[in-house]
């Protein structure tokens, strides 16, 4: 009987086991990015920038050169790398606390400059690493450690819709919001990530994929319920789709 390989781990990831909680979709998203880098055969020419938050240790998981940035500053660090090495692929991997709160300025200006980098923005509507506090993307009514009575727009304001906002900037070339809550959407997410890196390959400017993601631990839900919550509660607030495709990347 001959054995045929029908499935294998992507070479885009190292062999190191991830530290993510059960049901967290960071691992899935890591895999998608790793697969895209592998399939585009650009692993050796890629420098990733890890951010601060649950994904800080992503530098141990991606099988390419990695630099770890200060909280929120990954797009600035990526700018420094890309401006020196314009022929390499540079991406950041950031959560919603990192990107949408402390680092909102850096991502806006990187996009405005049309930095030819790719931002992987993982939005799970909460701070995970620090124990479940409100993020700028936390939904109205959502209970967190710092909104124990639920987020109240009159007190904490409303969620920031990052993709919509970034898409208004001329330097933004490819902006898409996808989700990780089921197989079909995960496959769509992978296509979006691929298009973002192709946008960079063509030198078209700033690309970002916002991926709606889970946090079972801090949401207080089991993994299956968490996926349902993304679909039922997050997607209506954060509509999926392509917000910018300046050059019609297919």
């Amino acid at each position, binding site marked *: 009987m001959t054995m045929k390989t029908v499935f294998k781990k992507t070479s885009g990831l190292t062999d190191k086991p991830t530290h993510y909680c059960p049901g967290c979709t960071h691992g899935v998203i890591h895999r998608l990015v790793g697969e895209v880098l592998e399939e585009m055969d650009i692993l050796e020419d890629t*420098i990733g920038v890890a951010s601060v938050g649950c994904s800080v*240790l992503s530098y141990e998981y991606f099988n390419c050169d990695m630099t770890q940035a200060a909280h929120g500053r990954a797009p600035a660090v990526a700018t*420094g790398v890309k401006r020196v*090495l314009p022929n390499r692929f540079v991406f950041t991997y950031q959560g919603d606390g990192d990107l949408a709160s402390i680092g909102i300025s850096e991502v806006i200006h990187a996009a405005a400059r049309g930095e030819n980098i790719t931002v992987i923005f993982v939005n799970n509507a909460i701070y995970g690493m620090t124990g479940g506090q409100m993020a700028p993307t936390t939904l109205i009514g959502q209970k967190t450690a710092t909104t124990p009575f639920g987020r109240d727009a009159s007190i904490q304001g409303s969620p920031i819709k990052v993709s919509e906002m970034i898409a208004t900037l001329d330097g933004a070339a490819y902006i898409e919001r996808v989700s990780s809550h089921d197989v079909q959407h995960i496959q769509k997410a992978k296509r979006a990530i691929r298009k973002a890196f192709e946008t960079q390959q063509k030198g078209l400017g700033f690309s970002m994929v916002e991926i709606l993601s889970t946090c079972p631990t801090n949401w207080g839900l089991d993994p299956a319920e968490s996926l349902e919550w993304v679909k039922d509660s997050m997607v209506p607030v954060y509509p999926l789709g392509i917000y910018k495709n300046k050059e019609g990347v297919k």
Partner: protein
Amino acid sequence: MGKVLMKGNEVIAEAAVHAGCKYFFGYPITPQSELVAYMARRLPEVGGLFLQAESEIAAINMVYGAASTGVRVMTSSSSPGFSLKQEGISYLVGAELPAVICNIVRGGPGLGNIQPAQSDYFQVTKGGGHGDYNIPVLAPASLQEIVELTQDAFDIADRYRTPVILMGDGMLGQMMEPVEFMDRLEQQKMEKPWATTGTRGDGGPKIVTSLELDAEGLEKRNWSLQQKFARIKQNEVRYETYQTDDAEIVMVAFGTVARITMNAINRARQNGVKVGLIRPISLWPFPEKPFIETRERIKAYISVEMSAGQMVEDVRLAVNGHAPVDFFGRTGGVVPTQEEIYEKLISVAGGGVSV
């Protein structure tokens, strides 16, 4: 190449270009804005890149990114902006990335003003950001010395994989003097196998990070950093002495204040007062040797600063109780005059010191 008349801020920029720095990320702030503008014009001529960042915070993190690829890179600012860079500087130290950061100091605290000051001495010499660290700090007193020390700064940064601070006061940045640029005979080419430039041909992923979650692991890393700081202390102390051989009083001053103090010393010498000067050029590592060599015979040291008294603490540590240490300073952007420094030294000399 002959001498050219230039402004201090521009000299720093041109000296950096001569040192092989092709990348500059900056943000405008008085009184160092000429440096940024010069780089914007000059770097494209040498195939380099200038980028105006959206903030001081972004600028230092762009420096971090560029430094992680192994190139010579620089940013500059003045006091309030320099404070904003502190987190990024701490990260540079932790990740062991070489870079040169220039601080043209102005009056503080807060927004303060735009007049010359030296009141960031504590910040630059005692760490500045979070964590256990020191950074080499070079403080030129003339525009020609800027040329020399800017090149030294890049060499030290590469040699020890550390950020290096070039510190001047607003006066140094704004004054004009003739300078001559000289390329180093052989530009030191450092191999940087740690640089994250992609893994093509080098076998495996490289990581630039300052994170170490394991306490024992971080302690080990910190001790190894301390060993590096000890090597820097061993090898990179710079200072100048002036008329200290027969001196009974020694003035201590750095940067432009040292030049004003030197004039006061010349005047006192004409009047028979035996006074000399120790001018620290590296503020960290602080030059202890000239104090150890003189402290048994010197009757008093006087630290002269454009601050309320910061370096004077390092002078006291170096003198270590062997002699009294006095202080004269002006703060808030006021430059001390030769006259008032002279009066201070005469009043100290009058207190039991032979005139």
